[in-house]
């Protein structure tokens, strides 16, 4: 804001006029209620009166939450998969094992030792 083009015409202020212009008041006291009115408007729009969380914290928080959730889901899935391999993949084998034990028990009945006195 520079007055770099003041001498362009003959309507230029005279020194006396310029002095009067410079004497004009630069400040005017606004009505007292304007401050409260302005602050109310700013409060309503969320610019003042509450703690504003910076955008980078919100974005960072969302990214961190997503990473933690994703990592938890992966670990959980992996653990669940590993545990279910024997129980789900070989029900037949388990049945066979039981049958084998039964048959083995029949083939070699437990010996009974009777001692007579």
């Amino acid at each position, binding site marked *: *804001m*520079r*007055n*770099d*083009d003041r001498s*362009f*015409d003959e*309507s*230029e*202020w005279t020194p*006396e*006029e310029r002095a*009067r*212009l410079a004497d*004009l*008041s*630069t*400040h*005017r*006291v*606004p*009505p007292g209620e*304007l*401050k409260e*009115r*302005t*602050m109310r*408007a*700013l*409060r309503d*729009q*969320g*610019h*003042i*009166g*509450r*703690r*504003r969380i*910076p955008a980078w914290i919100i974005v960072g928080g969302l990214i961190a939450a997503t990473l933690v959730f994703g990592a938890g889901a992966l670990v959980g899935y992996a653990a669940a998969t590993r545990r279910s391999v024997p129980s789900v993949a070989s029900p037949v084998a388990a049945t066979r094992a039981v049958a084998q034990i039964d048959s083995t028990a029949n083939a070699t009945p437990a010996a009974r030792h009777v001692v007579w006195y």
Partner: protein
Amino acid sequence: MTHYFDPSATDDDLLRAIRRDGSERAFGILYDRHTPRAYQTAWRILGGSQADAEDAIQEAWVRATASLDSRRSDAEFGAWFRSIVAHVAIDIVRKQQRLELDADIDAALDENEESNERLDLESAIASLPAGYRAVLVLHDIEGYTHEEIGTRLGITAGTSKGQLFKARRAVRARLAPRIEERT
């Protein structure tokens, strides 16, 4: 969160507190520091209308606080805020369809002359048609260049110079009788 701010805290400290915490205390100090100067600017551009000047100040503070993040940190806050106020004041004049840059300034002044009332400088400026008044206030009082005024008002720098020429002549015409009376 409540902070204590020394009233002599720098603008940058206050702005940081407003951005970080929405501090009302910091805003209050900033408001007290910069509003009287900006209110005068709005009051002049708006031809002495108190209600319009108040609206301009409120709207300017809303715009300023909303765009603190985009403000250049090396820019002086007071000047930056007053430029917003000038912008808002011109918007208000434009909305009221009073920004007639091709208004017949001589006819407007003739109407005033009929009252045969001699004005002081402040009143002479206020009596100008809105478009002329805006150019004169922005250039001769606020220190804007014609290029900057042209950008704000949507006119060329040449038009701004022409407006200023007529505005000065009109103000001088209103003041001349007083000067003659004194001499």
